[in-house]
């Protein structure tokens, strides 16, 4: 089948304003959008820029705005997108070139939640024990691939770029609810701060956007509840 791609383009330092470019490619309905972008880049216009690596939805490189919603280009098939497809960079991050956005501030917020296990106690010679139920408690939030789809779909983040954003909260949730972690109080201070979880207005865009199917809004809700109770 033939598909038309309308792609929003911009190059930092060169273009004043973004502009739209149109391409037509021949493709299979079961091809990924990433395949169509490659068809453009490899055989029509080598200047088109986007990130990608794994091509099957686990490395988090190619989140972008596809027909108005955040998706991974490698995890959506053309048959689900129609014959005219609009592709834009994620909203709320500065654009470097075309579909490539700046990730440095996003990663900074990730670092801010101190995303590592804090257990002061001496570990045993073998593993720390954890029951399957305790492990299940935070399973959902271990799936996060830091693609940015949730944070850049969040109206609260658009209006306040200092907001931690759903992705960083998901990562914090993963440690907060890990039975081995011993820093609950410290974590709650960061999460309860001015630009922490209370900026969330429970709009659910993040949950819809997550390519890993994480129930992001629910995780944020659990963090809010922990703050109210003062414990996890």
């Amino acid at each position, binding site marked *: 089948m033939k598909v038309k791609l309308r792609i929003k383009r911009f*190059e*930092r*330092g*060169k273009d004043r304003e973004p502009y739209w470019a149109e391409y037509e490619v021949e493709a299979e309905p*079961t091809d*990924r959008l990433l395949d169509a972008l490659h068809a453009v*880049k*490899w*055989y029509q*216009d*080598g*200047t088109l*820029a986007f*990130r*990608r*690596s*794994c*091509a*099957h*939805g*686990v*490395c*988090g*490189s190619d989140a972008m705005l596809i027909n108005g919603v955040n998706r991974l280009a490698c*995890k959506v*098939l053309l048959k689900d997108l129609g014959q005219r497809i609009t592709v834009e960079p994620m909203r709320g991050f500065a654009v*470097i*070139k*075309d579909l*490539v956005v700046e*990730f440095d501030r996003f990663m900074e917020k990730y*670092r801010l939640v*101190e*995303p*590592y*296990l804090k*257990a002061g106690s001496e*570990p045993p*010679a*073998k*593993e*720390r*024990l*954890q*029951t*399957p139920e*305790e*492990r299940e408690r*935070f*399973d959902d939030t*271990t*799936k996060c*691939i*830091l693609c940015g789809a949730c944070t850049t779909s969040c109206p609260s983040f658009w209006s306040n770029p200092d907001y931690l954003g759903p992705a960083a909260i998901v990562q914090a949730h*993963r*440690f907060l609810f*890990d039975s*081995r*972690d011993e820093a609950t109080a410290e974590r709650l201070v960061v999460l309860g701060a001015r630009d922490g979880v209370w900026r969330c207005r429970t709009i659910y865009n993040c949950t819809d956007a997550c390519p890993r*199917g994480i129930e992001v809004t629910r995780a944020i809700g659990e963090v809010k509840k922990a703050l109210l109770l003062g414990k996890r």
Partner: protein
Amino acid sequence: MEAVYHRYDAVIVGGGGAGLMAAVNLAGQEVAVLSKLYPVRSHTGTAQGGIGAALGNVEEDHWEWHMFDTVKGSDYLADQDATEILAREAVETVYELEHWGLPFSRTPDGKIAQRRFGGHTREFGKAPVHRSCYAADRTGHMILQTLYQQCIKNRVKFFDEYLVLDLLLEGQRTAGVVALSIADGQLHVFHAKAVLLATGGCGRIYQITSNAHALTGDGMALALRAGVPLEDMEFFQFHPTGIYKLGILITEGARGEGGKLFNGRGERFMERYAPTLLDLAPRDIISRAIYRELRQGHGVEGKWYVHLDLRHLGREVIETKLPDITDFVRTYLGIDPITEPIPVQPTAHYAMGGVPTDVSGRVVVDEKNTVLPGLYAAGECACVSVHGANRLGTNSLVDILVFGRRAGRDMGRYVGEAELPPLPAQPEERARALLARLREGPNGDGRAESVAALRDELQREMMDKASVFRTGESLAEVREQVRALQERYQQVRVQDRGWVFNTDLVEAVELGFLLDVAEVTVEAALARQESRGAHYREDFPQRDDVKWLKHSLGRRTASGALELSYKPVTITRFQPQERKY
């Protein structure tokens, strides 16, 4: 543009499992990690099934059994001193990861869960054993994140989206690397006492592969260009179960949980090829069996695939133990593995060969294992060699961590003792010339070649002539083709002339790396007139220990030709035997 200069004690090229593990072990030193991807995007994150270690959490197990399986799996080509280290240190490595917070799946009594995997057995081959420690089917994702988290905790310095273009040597010592900052096109010279190559695999030399687009053999090619040989490149693993046409991996863990393979006639064909281990035989054996079935016309509906059937496992097991692959199959094939079998075909997966090192990760450059001071390699781009002619599943994650750590520690020692060598004159010149050629093309108006066209041809021909089955004829043919592609590569010109996030240029550089790696792979495969592990020559179907129980070393000579030499295999505990499963 002037290059920007940096000075560090140690530079790590690659932010996957091997690079990050080394970084954690160098924390506190002046160390920089350079990575062409954000580290969390590295391919380690796609590893699914697990990491092997004889913890004995589910049933009795011993590191000696793990070592034996690894040696036998390698078709006796692995160096047994290194394999012993792998199997012993795997255990403490897994506990260390757990202490760092890695969310392993758990047994009912709260220990790290373990599952079966191909070629891993109890009592030296009697029956499959539960040895693979896993976190659902996203073990690699959790390892990569845990290591990155430890790097954040230890304030490791990162240069993200920096593509390393050249390795700098001064005399016979390592002096640093030259890299391109992808975001703005700036060249950077990193002057350092020690450099670790941890750039991962090169699966993109083949058309059907489980490997990410970024796996283009960069570190291997950088070493080759600096005069270092590559070891055992003829051994490339094809994983039996890639999703039909796409190559996306379905973990061996699916068979570890009980999944079975069927041909188009509904036969459980592995009964004929590996009567004891069946669907859990090592990968080389199953991939060959599938190819044989397909060639005999026993594919499903006459097509080039067989079925992997998980249905009898039931929804609960499939969705909780294999959630990611279930999602892949639903997304990309539109079928549900709970109710339908999965179409699979062998997919290019893992390079057993690579940059030769000793057990401390130090790069060794000849038959006598002479060390090149300051140069290190670890992970899939290196060859210690623990995998020999065929790697067992779950052993790469062990390899990248055990030898990543050893390399990091030895680099720490080395930078404490060594002086900083001077930089070579005009250190960035070679890198600059490479970029200029790819951007401007050859002598002005000459007909320019396109990266995509050359890469397509390379991948197709390698798949056809240098994959699961090979012959002298097919290899001689593809050797000529790769040489011709190398010539045409000199005529490449990219379309994008900008400097800002120019991925056209990045891909052109990567194609150069792929061609170098493919060239050595084919040369070594053509020379090896026997069949061993993943290297199967239809014209020499037997293993030949008298002539070929040795590692190959492929080196680029000053004239540009490739030259092969060989070095002996280290054998300590297990004498070579016939390999049956």
